[in-house]
C-alpha cells in the first residue's frame, strides 16, 4: 500500500502545486470576466473578437490588424473620414506652396497626450517622424511612408541626424517639404508611420512604452494581455469629444465567433462562408443583425509576363477569358464578394465603373490560345499556379478555375500551395509563373496600387510587367496637380494594363458581420481608419 500511496502523493503533489499558482492566475481573469460583462459602472461596453496585434508602435506597424488598433489610440496630422475623404485631424488646416512641394500644417492647440495631458506641438511631430526613420527604430516601412520628405532618406541611411525637410515654424505650425509635388503625399500622412508619439514616454522606456502608450486618439489602452485580450478605454480628453462607448474589449485568442455572438459573449462577429446562408435567410434571427460592406481591396490572378508561356499576351488573355468569374462567385463563393471588372476597387478615387476586364468568352479564349506563339494547348510548357495556403486542398475558387481551364482550353494547371513566408519571398524574386493574390489599399489614392504594382521600376512589380507608355503616364500622374486630370491619367493607365492582362482581376473585397441590435452606428471601414468613436450603445 505504501508504494501505491507514493504514486497518489506524486500526482496529488502536482495538482496542489498547480492549484496554488492557479489561484494567482484566476484572480486576474475573473477581474477580466467582470469587465467583459458589459454595462459596468464605467459606461457602455463594446465586446468584439479582434486579431492579435503584433505591435502598437505606429512607427513599426506593417500589418492591417495592428493598424486597426493604432488608428484608434494614436492620431496624426490628417485622417480619413467616414466618406473616405482626407480630413483634418491634429492639423486643423494646411497650405500647399504653388510648386506643390511644401506643406504648411496649422495644428490645433487643444490636443493633449493621454494620461499626461501634455499639449501636442509641432516639435512632437518632428520628433515622431524622425524617430520613425531613425535606423535604431528598425522600421521596415519608413521609406515607404516618409521617404518622400526631403532629407528623410539621409536620416534612414544614417548620414543625417534629423530630417531637413521638416521644420518647426512655431509651436503650432509645421512645415514639411517633399522631393516632388506628389498629391498623394497627404494621404500617406493619414497612415500610422507619421503619427505623433509622446517623446517623454518613449525615451523613458524604449521597450515597454507601447504596453500603455500615451496616444492622442479617441481611445487609450486600459489593459493589453499579449495574445489574450486588449481593452480600450474612451479618451475623455479627446479633442473632438469623448467617445460614447466607454470600453471596448477585444478578445484576441480566437474562438468560434458566431457561437460567442449567439451566446451573447460578444456584440459583433464575423460571418464566414459557412454561415452566410443563415445571415441571408430572412427567417433566421441573424438576418436582421447582418451587415456587409465593401473593403477597398481586390483579389487577382497575376501572370509572370517574363516567363513562358505568359510572356505572350495572347496566352494571358486566353486564360483570363476562359474563367467564368460570375459563376465562381455565385456557386463557389456564395455571392459573398462582387466580381471585379477593374484594377482600382470601388470607393477608390479614380475607380472606373466602366472599366472592363475581359468577360467570360471560352470560344475567343480557345482562338487566342491557338493564335499565340505556342499554337494551342499542346505547345504550352507545364503550368503551375501558386497560392498562399497551409492546408492540403486549394481554395475552391482556384480549383474551379483550374477545372475551367481544363474544360475550355484543354490545359492542365497544377496548383502549388506555399505558406506566406515563402510566398512573399518567391513573389519578390518573380519566380512564379502564375499566382493568386490580393492587394489591400493602404491609403485611398490610385498611386498605392497602379504605380506600386505596375511601374516597371517598382520592386513590387511581381508580374514583371513593363509598358513604357504606362510608366510614362504613371510618372506624369504622380505630380499632376489637377485632381480631375490626375484621375483621368490613372484611368488611362488602368485601361492599358487591362488590355495587356498582367492581371486578371477576380473579386473586390467585402466584409460580413452580425451586430447586436443595441449597437448603433457600427460600420465596416473600407480601409483602416478610426471608427469606434462613432459607435453608440442603447442600454
Amino acid at each position, binding site marked *: *500500500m505504501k*508504494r*501505491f500511496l*507514493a*504514486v497518489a502523493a*506524486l*500526482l496529488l503533489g*502536482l*495538482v496542489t502545486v*498547480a*492549484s496554488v499558482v*492557479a*489561484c494567482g*492566475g*484566476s484572480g486576474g*481573469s*475573473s477581474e477580466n*470576466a467582470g469587465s467583459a460583462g458589459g454595462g459596468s459602472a464605467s459606461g457602455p461596453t463594446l465586446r468584439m473578437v479582434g486579431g*492579435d496585434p*503584433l*505591435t502598437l508602435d505606429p512607427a*513599426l506597424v*506593417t*500589418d*492591417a490588424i495592428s493598424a486597426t488598433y493604432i488608428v484608434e489610440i494614436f492620431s496624426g496630422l490628417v485622417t480619413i473620414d467616414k466618406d473616405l475623404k482626407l480630413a483634418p485631424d491634429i492639423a486643423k488646416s494646411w497650405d500647399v506652396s504653388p510648386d506643390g512641394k511644401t506643406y504648411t500644417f496649422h495644428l490645433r492647440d487643444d490636443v493633449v497626450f493621454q494620461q499626461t495631458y501634455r499639449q501636442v506641438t509641432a516639435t512632437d511631430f518632428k520628433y515622431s517622424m524622425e524617430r520613425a526613420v531613425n*535606423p535604431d527604430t*528598425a*522600421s*521596415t*516601412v*519608413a*521609406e*515607404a511612408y516618409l521617404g518622400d520628405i526631403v532629407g528623410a532618406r539621409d536620416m*534612414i541611411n544614417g548620414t543625417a541626424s534629423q530630417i531637413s525637410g521638416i521644420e518647426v515654424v512655431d509651436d503650432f505650425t509645421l512645415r514639411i517639404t517633399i522631393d516632388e509635388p506628389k498629391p498623394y503625399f497627404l494621404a500617406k500622412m493619414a497612415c500610422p508611420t507619421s503619427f505623433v508619439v509622446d517623446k517623454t514616454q518613449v525615451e523613458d522606456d524604449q*521597450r515597454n512604452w507601447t504596453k500603455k502608450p500615451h496616444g492622442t486618439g479617441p481611445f487609450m489602452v486600459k489593459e493589453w*494581455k*499579449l*495574445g*489574450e485580450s486588449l481593452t480600450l478605454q474612451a479618451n475623455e480628453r479627446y479633442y473632438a469629444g469623448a467617445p460614447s462607448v466607454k470600453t471596448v474589449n477585444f*478578445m484576441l*485568442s*480566437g*474562438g*468560434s465567433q458566431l*457561437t*460567442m455572438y*449567439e*451566446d451573447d*459573449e460578444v456584440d459583433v462577429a464575423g460571418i464566414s462562408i459557412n454561415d452566410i446562408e443563415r445571415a441571408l435567410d430572412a427567417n433566421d434571427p441573424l438576418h436582421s443583425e447582418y451587415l456587409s460592406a465593401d473593403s477597398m481591396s481586390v483579389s487577382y490572378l497575376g501572370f509572370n509576363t517574363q516567363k513562358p508561356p505568359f510572356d505572350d499576351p495572347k496566352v494571358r488573355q486566353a486564360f483570363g477569358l476562359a474563367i467564368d468569374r460570375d459563376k465562381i462567385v455565385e456557386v463557389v463563393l456564395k455571392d459573398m464578394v462582387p466580381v471585379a471588372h477593374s484594377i482600382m476597387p470601388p470607393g477608390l478615387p479614380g475607380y472606373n465603373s466602366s472599366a472592363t476586364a475581359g468577360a467570360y468568352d471560352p470560344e475567343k479564349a480557345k482562338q487566342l490560345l491557338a493564335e499565340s506563339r505556342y499554337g494551342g494547348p499542346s505547345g504550352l510548357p507545364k503550368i503551375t499556379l501558386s497560392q498562399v495556403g*497551409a492546408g492540403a486542398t486549394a481554395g475552391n475558387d482556384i480549383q474551379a478555375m483550374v477545372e475551367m481551364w481544363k474544360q475550355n482550353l484543354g490545359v492542365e494547371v497544377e496548383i502549388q500551395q506555399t*505558406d506566406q*513566408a*515563402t510566398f*512573399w*519571398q518567391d*513573389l*519578390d524574386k518573380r519566380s512564379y509563373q502564375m499566382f493568386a493574390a490580393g492587394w*489591400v489599399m493602404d491609403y485611398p489614392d490610385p498611386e498605392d496600387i497602379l504605380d506600386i504594382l505596375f511601374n516597371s521600376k517598382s*520592386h*513590387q512589380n511581381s508580374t514583371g510587367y513593363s509598358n513604357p507608355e504606362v510608366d510614362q503616364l504613371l510618372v506624369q500622374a504622380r505630380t499632376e496637380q489637377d485632381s480631375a486630370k490626375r484621375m483621368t491619367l490613372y484611368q488611362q493607365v488602368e485601361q492599358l494594363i487591362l488590355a495587356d492582362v498582367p492581371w486578371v482581376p477576380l473579386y473586390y473585397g467585402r466584409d460580413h458581420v452580425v451586430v447586436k441590435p443595441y449597437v448603433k452606428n457600427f460600420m465596416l471601414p473600407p480601409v483602416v481608419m478610426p471608427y469606434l468613436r462613432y459607435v453608440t450603445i442603447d442600454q
Partner: protein
Amino acid sequence: MQGLLPYVVRRLLWAPLILLAVSFIAFAITRFGPGDPLRVAMGQYSDPVALERVRHEEGLDKPFFEQYGIYLKNLAHGKLGESLTYRNRDVSEVIFPRIWVSARLGLVALLIIFAVGVPLGIFAALRQGTWADPFSISVFLFLQSVPVLITVPLMLLVFVLKLHWLPAAGWGGLFDKRIVMPALALSLPGIAGIARLTRATTLSVLREDYVRTARAKGLREFTVISRHVVRNSLLPLVTVVGISLATLVEGAFFAETLLGIPGIGKLTFDSVQGRDYNIILALALVLCSAFIIANIVIDIAYTVIDPRVRYERQRLG
C-alpha cells in the same frame, strides 16, 4: 536505491548536451529553411533596401555560426532573444504566459485521461467475456477516432447554444468553467489508449500466481482486486505518461484555436507561419526540456514504485 542517484546525475548531465543538439538543429532549420521573418512582417510591401537595413539592425545578416554563437551566449545568460513578429517584445514575455496556460490545461486533460481510462480498463478486464468489455472500450475507441475539429463544434452546440451551461470561448484558469470544453476535447481521444493498456495489464496480472494465492487464502474479491490486481497493473502506466504528454501537445492547436485559449498551440502555428526564429527555437528548447524532465521524473517514480526496478547497470559496468 543506491544506484539511483548516479543514474539521475548522469541523465541530468546528458540534458544540456541534448538541448545543445536540439538548439543546433532548430537553429539550422530556421536559418536555412525557406522564408524570411522580416519579409513576412512587411506583408504586401516589399522594399529590398528597408529589408536589408532592418536585417542588419537585427543581426540577421551575420554569418550562420556567428549568429549561432551569439544565440548560445545569450542562452547561457538565460536570454531567449527578442521576438521577430511581436516587435520589441522578449521571447520569454511572449511564450511563458502561454506555456503556463497550455501546461495547466494539459495537466487537467491528463488527469481526466487517467481518472477515466484506468477504472474503465480495470472494469473491462474484470468483465472479460461479457458484452460490457467490448462495448465500453468501443465507446472510447469511437471517441478517439473523432477529431477535435468535430468534437469541439458539437460541444459548442450542446453546452453553449442548447444548454447555455458554458461560455463559448476564453480562458480563466483552472477553476473557471471555461476549462471544461478544452479539457474534454483534449482528453477524450486519449482515454481509449490508457483504458486498453490498463485492461491488458490487468488481465495479465489476473493470471498471476499471487492473485490465485490471494483468492485461495479466502480474501474477499474486493481486497484481491484493489490490493493485488490494481496496484500491480498500474505500474506500466507510469511509463506512458510521457507519451500521453506528446499527444496532448499535438491536439492543443485545434482545441485552443477553436475555443479561444491563449496557449502555445496557436502561437506555435503563427510563429512558424511568420518565421519568428527566436520563438520557434525557444518553444523547441522549452518543450524538449519538459520532456527530458518528465522522463527523468518518471524513471525515478518507477524505481520508487516498483522495487524490481533498480539501476544496477553501473555496478555491472
